[in-house]
């Protein structure tokens, strides 16, 4: 039997008369790297916000680890083992890099000493140990993205939702982040991944869902998606080919 860690069941989200997400369903299996792609305004981030408790869903259910989570608060969702990063990074600016990651670690420990140990481990994993005492606000965008990753990893999540973690990064930085993500999967976490960079998505994902104007357009393996004519026309705007 296949174990679904996350089940999105007929989820819709309306803002007034504006339909941001419309009747989207898919399932993510344990230890998958799952891609969520689509053009700007397709509803990817809105869907993330619905999954992680930041927006209530208008209709439909989100089931995580056999629990219905779409009525929970963000902190409760996090406590169940689902962590997210932000498309626009949200560092705790006046705290140091180490302190940022410690805040994440406090969700699994109550003592400052243990939180610091966990935080240092995570900083090592994302190669940020040289910046431990720098203030988070002073980092470059590439380092801030790494910090976001370290911070959510410190909550020891079962599932990670990454919202354009490679956005604004150059090729070298993207490759480093993708390596880190592969490592995270090896350690047993499941990953859902919003990304614009098609090369990054197809190189790392086991399975991909394409959203367009709030609706699910296609689902399949990276090869199926790259050869799907609907996806090509939605993504590239008609007859153009990349």
């Amino acid at each position, binding site marked *: 039997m296949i174990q679904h860690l996350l089940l999105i069941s007929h989820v819709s989200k309306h803002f007034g008369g504006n339909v941001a997400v419309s009747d989207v369903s898919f399932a993510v299996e344990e230890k998958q790297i799952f891609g969520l792609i689509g053009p700007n305004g397709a509803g990817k981030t809105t869907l993330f916000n619905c999954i992680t408790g930041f927006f209530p869903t208008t209709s439909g259910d989100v089931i995580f680890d056999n629990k219905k989570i779409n009525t929970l608060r963000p*902190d409760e969702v996090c406590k169940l083992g689902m962590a997210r990063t932000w498309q626009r990074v949200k560092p705790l600016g006046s*705290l140091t890099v180490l302190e940022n990651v410690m*805040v994440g670690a406090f969700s699994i420990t109550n003592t400052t000493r243990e939180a610091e140990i966990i935080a240092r481990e995570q900083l090592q994993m994302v190669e940020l140990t040289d910046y431990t005492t720098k203030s988070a606000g002073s980092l470059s965008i590439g380092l801030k993205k790494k910090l976001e990753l370290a911070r959510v990893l410190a909550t020891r999540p079962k599932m990670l939702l990454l919202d354009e973690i490679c956005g604004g990064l150059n090729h070298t930085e993207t490759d480093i982040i993708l390596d880190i993500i592969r490592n995270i999967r090896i350690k047993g976490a499941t990953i859902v991944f919003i990304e614009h960079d098609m090369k990054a998505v197809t190189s790392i994902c086991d399975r991909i869902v394409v959203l367009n104007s709030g609706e699910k357009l296609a689902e399949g393996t990276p090869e199926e998606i790259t050869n799907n004519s609907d996806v090509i026309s939605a993504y590239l705007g008609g007859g153009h080919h990349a």
Partner: protein
Amino acid sequence: MKKIALSVIAATAVALPIFIGENPYLIGIMISVLMMAALSSAWNILGGYAGQYSFGHAAYFGTGAYSTLILLTLNNSLNPLFCMAMGIIVASIIALITGSIVFRLRGHYFGLASIAVAEIVRLSVLNLEFTGGAQGILLSDVSLWGIDLNSKNPFYYGMLLVLVVTLSISQYLRTSKTGYYLQAIREDQDAAASLGINLAFYKNKALLISAALTSILGSLYGLYIRFIDTSAVLDLRLSIEIILTAIIGGVGTMWGPVVGALLLVPLAEMLRSNLLGDVLVKAGLVSETSGIGVFLKENLAHAHVLVYGIITVLCILYLPKGILGLFRRVK
């Protein structure tokens, strides 16, 4: 090094009344300094660490003062600690009601609501019978539980003790899970929530600690001056002074409120007693009979609030992190 500095400060603080001797005026100013430092530190736990600016802390201060004096005028054999505890309970109830309603909302609602709640408390006290209304409450006993209430030294040490307790709580919070969580909330509420922080719970916790400490100080102050009315302990002006002290000293730092109080309280006193004008006259810079001399004498005493305002504006422009921010290396 740090420990030596702390010991010197502590020893000075403890020995100060002995040096000053029987000068009630100076002791009075020192009591005001300690009280404002403690009030501002207590406010700082909520406003500085958690970033939730309360503009109505006078409500908790007044609650402590009124609870204590009302109880003692009813029965002067009550234990002072019991009266303080009652003050804490009333202040906590007000804090919990405010927090549980307003902390669900984002943005500046807490700041606005804190003013509204403080005004509700002030107007209630002003119009109720058992609070003495506009006449206020006078505690006629001059001696309770063997303490001579006319002597200022017990209150000096009382305020010092509460300040030490407040600073200790402040320091403990800063290095504990709660302190990290409060700072995370201040920096970015979405990020904080996504990392498993229950926003409303931790904001309420900070408010509760802050309100309880403020109420204790109110109780002590009520016993100290023995006559209170709404303009003395429930005024918006007091709430503002608490905030300014923290901002000028350094919001979110442990010692900022203490530095702010050490600077502002004596300054306000100097202006109020026209010491500044006197000094200028005595130094021969200004003639007492000249236009400027007369102007200073007549107006400067009323100008301490104006000077507070000017200092605050200068601070915000040039020292956005307060005086302590000057000594902090930029990382």
